[in-house]
């Protein structure tokens, strides 16, 4: 039993980016000072998160609550291994994305940059709120705030395409959460007799029965539609109308990972692995996830728009995570939690590259990338590393998490699921490697590009190099992540 300790730091970590919002709006007329605030907030936030790391590694659980809003349910922060891991990933990548966004937005001379950065800070605040949420209601509230605060980012361009994309985005995310999560949450609240705080054990008990248990489980799994599980996945490709920094941080890391994070929380915190084993209902989720993995990979193959291809790849990778958790084995859960981090580094690299290509060359279709490797060698090298990581090949972090996932699957004796992993890995390779190959190794006459090197501005280039590097480092040094994941899965 981990010791629970009161601490103000989770609250502060949450508050920092929230306080940045008014500051950003007030400094709207001075872009440099405005971006300064963003960086300051991002770094301070990362600092706070790091401050909590040693405490959590000692096995402590940090806890902070205020304002009991409904009988027995306060707004509560509770930091454990899973939460801190997610917070580290999100807040560290925020720093890089801020730098990237700076380069991207300025070189494209985007409009309404103040709104953009303000909403960005707000959505980061909500993300941290989800990561540290100590009960279902807090989780739900921040989940909704995240949906709403990212809406202006998705519809940033304000044209017809952005508006219809934004409509799909909001209707899918809000619709599912209100229709499924809210009743499931109230059901738990009622069943538990007025208490939905997460603890080490499970919230529900066996008396729920398999039927009701399955309904509640599915309501949560589909309700947190940010996890991109089919059939509620179509918001993600539609959200690709957003500027690339948004797609990179939010739709490869923060928003979608919030979705799977919530599902992991539901599996480990609300139901508990033991209970799910007894009820024997998780296998339904496994198969839905397996279906999503294969289908989305197939769709990704046919996408010519680079960002959409990445989006469908993300949908598949997210389902890996859900699949891993639903195996109900320590190895699978560890693999899932690891994959949250590893996929984040890999996918954000790919998005950064896509954005860099757009900034430098104004290209956004896969078919236009033939021969671009000579023009933008650094970007495309990073792209190659990112692809390797997402496919799960050495020497990238993706291999580590996939290793655990495959091991978990093997341990569970579900050969069919093992085959799913295998096929999808091949498909991943099929939709990424040709891009890399044709970018570098095409015949000169095929190449669509001429002339010397022309990379994106440094502000774009540096972040993508760092994230590519992180992907590699996390292969050689995954210890911290494994340790944090173990805090949850070994219970």
């Amino acid at each position, binding site marked *: 039993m981990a010791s629970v300790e009161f601490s103000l730091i989770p609250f502060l970590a949450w508050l920092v980016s929230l306080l940045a919002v008014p500051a950003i709006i007030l400094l709207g007329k001075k872009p440099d000072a405005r971006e300064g605030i963003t960086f300051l907030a991002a770094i301070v936030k990362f600092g706070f998160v790091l401050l909590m790391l040693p405490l959590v590694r000692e096995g402590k659980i940090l806890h902070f609550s205020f304002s009991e809003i409904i009988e027995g349910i306060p707004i509560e922060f509770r930091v454990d291994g899973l939460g801190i891991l997610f917070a580290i990933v999100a807040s560290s990548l925020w720093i890089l994305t801020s730098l990237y966004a700076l380069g991207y937005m300025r070189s494209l001379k985007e409009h309404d940059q103040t709104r953009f950065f303000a909403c960005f800070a707000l959505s980061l605040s909500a993300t941290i709120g989800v990561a540290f949420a100590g009960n279902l209601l807090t989780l739900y509230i921040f989940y909704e705030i995240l949906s709403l605060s990212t809406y202006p980012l998705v*519809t940033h361009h304000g044209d017809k395409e952005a508006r219809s994309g934004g409509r799909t985005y909001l209707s899918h995310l809000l619709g599912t959460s209100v229709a499924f999560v809210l009743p499931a949450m109230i059901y738990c609240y009622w069943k538990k007799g007025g208490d939905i705080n997460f603890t080490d054990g499970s919230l529900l008990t066996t008396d729920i029965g398999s039927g009701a248990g399955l309904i509640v489980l599915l309501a949560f799994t589909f309700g947190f539609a940010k996890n991109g599980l089919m059939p509620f996945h179509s918001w993600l490709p539609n959200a690709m109308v957003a500027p690339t920094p948004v797609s990179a941080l939010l739709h490869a890391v923060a928003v979608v990972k919030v979705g799977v994070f919530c599902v992991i929380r539901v599996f480990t915190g609300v139901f508990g692995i033991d209970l799910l084993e007894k009820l024997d209902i998780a296998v339904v989720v496994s198969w839905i996830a397996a279906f999503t993995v294969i289908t989305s990979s197939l769709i990704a193959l046919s996408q010519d728009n680079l960002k959409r291809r990445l989006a469908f790849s993300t949908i598949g990778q997210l389902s890996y995570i859900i699949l891993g958790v639903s195996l109900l084995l320590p190895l699978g859960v560890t693999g899932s939690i690891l994959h949250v981090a590893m996929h984040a580094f890999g996918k954000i690299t790919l998005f950064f590259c896509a954005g860099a290509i757009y900034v430098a060359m104004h290209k956004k279709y896969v078919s236009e990338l033939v021969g671009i490797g000579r023009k933008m060698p650094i970007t495309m090298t990073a792209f190659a590393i990112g692809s390797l990581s997402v496919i799960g090949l050495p020497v990238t972090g993706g291999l580590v998490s996939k290793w655990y996932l495959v091991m978990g699957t093997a341990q569970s004796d579900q050969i069919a699921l093992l085959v799913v992993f295998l096929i999808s890995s091949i498909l991943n390779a099929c939709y990424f490697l040709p891009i890399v190959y044709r970018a570098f190794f095409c015949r000169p006459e095929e190449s669509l590009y001429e002339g010397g090197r022309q990379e994106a501005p440094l502000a774009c280039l540096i972040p993508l190099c760092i994230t590519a590097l992180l992907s590699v480092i996390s292969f050689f040094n995954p210890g911290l992540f494994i340790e944090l994941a173990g805090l949850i899965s070994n219970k």
Partner: protein
Amino acid sequence: MTDHLPILLLLLPLFGSLICVLLGRNNAAHSWVVAMISLGGSALLSLLMLIKVLGLKSGDFRYRMGGWPESSSYEVGIELRVDVLACLIVLAVMIVGFLNTIYSKTRVSAEVGEKGSFFYALIQLLIVGLCGIIMTNDAFNLYVLIEITSLTSYALIAMGNRRAALSSFNYVIMGTIGASFYLLGVGYLYIKTGTLNIDDIHNYLRSENLWASQSIVVAFILIMLGVWTKMAFFPLHGWLPNAYSYAPSMTGTFMAPLMTKVMVYVMIRVMLWLFGSDFVYSTESIWSELIIWMSVVAIVAGSFLALARNDIKKMLTYLIIAEVGYMVGGAWLGNLNGQAGAFYHILSDAAMTFCLFIAASIVIIRTGESRLNAFDDLFRKMPITMIGFTIGGLSMIGLPPTCGFFSKWYLIKGGVETGQWEFVVALLFSSLINAVIFFKIFERAYFGKIKGIKEEVTVQDRDTIPAGGIKSVPLSMLIPLCVGSLSILIIGIMNKNIFSWITKALEMVNG
């Protein structure tokens, strides 16, 4: 002094309205001052009353009109009865009345012309009637007060344009049928029990065990039909949308949040205090099943009808019809959470409807357009108005921390507890429809017109509204809006306290 609070807060607006009449035509400015004083004073008194009642151990107190002595058997005089629930609603009525008077300041001369002082007289009378309905403990008095509010509201609505007169006429017909049904039901009760005091009727029904009597069942049905007509419970809602949307704007902003809600309170009062929960819920359990299904239909139909409307105020009025479904369903769930949720929703719905109606009125007045395309690009031009509208809209959808979320929370919890899943589904469904409705508007207001797509009708040049149009909206309209949207948040954040007061009062009557 504090013993006389209930009657004092009725007398203040009553005399206020008399003074307004005496001031005569063309004296709207003075009448406004009179109304502000009387309603402000009454609002303070009702706050005092709430504080007093919260301090009472017994939970309620009675005021004997005319000083009739207490008697051992039936009550002779007419009683006012005040408990926490009544106090909360009276406070809501007074605050909405006061804020609405502020709002009316500039609108009265524009919309009703020289009859301004009569408008203030009527609105104060209406408030007297509403508070009387809430506090009275006498079934027949309740009828008279219902008719007082109805008569004043017919007149208030008819002050609008020619369509308003027609819809007011329809309202007269429907309203009279409703009130007469209620009177008929009271007649049956009186024949059976020989008294009109609500507590006495209840005790008599209980002691003589008259619940199986056909006359009582008929009386109950008649009263329910009457009350439902008055509260526009689907399918008895026909009169409401036209009446509220064609009425002068300051009439709409007052009546939309309050009239139906007060009638919902009357329904709860009739159910729990007059007939008693034993009769209402258990003996005729088919009823609650049936009525919950009716409320499900009301919620779904109201939401769909709202979705189909392109007129701002019409859309909002259909939303009211859906919300009435929430409250009726909640009250009929038959458990504490449902009842308290329905009651809490009365308060929160009053706040959010007020907010939305004020914002919508401002938008319609400023843009001169009553269809949804009035909202094009308004976030930039009228930011404060739109923020108020947004808060109201989010509350309608039911997102935390607005009060709409918490009322839905309690109602759904009530539905889950009793296993009325159809009600839960209907609530969630209407949330989703509301989300569609409001985000459609937010999108328009946020992005403006899509370039390259021609609107079917462009009534007037949108550029006549200056950017940052806040300066062109008088403060007397913005203050009520701001207070209204703040109160949405306050009711939301204070939900735990309010809810515990409500449950305590309800536990007392449920036994």
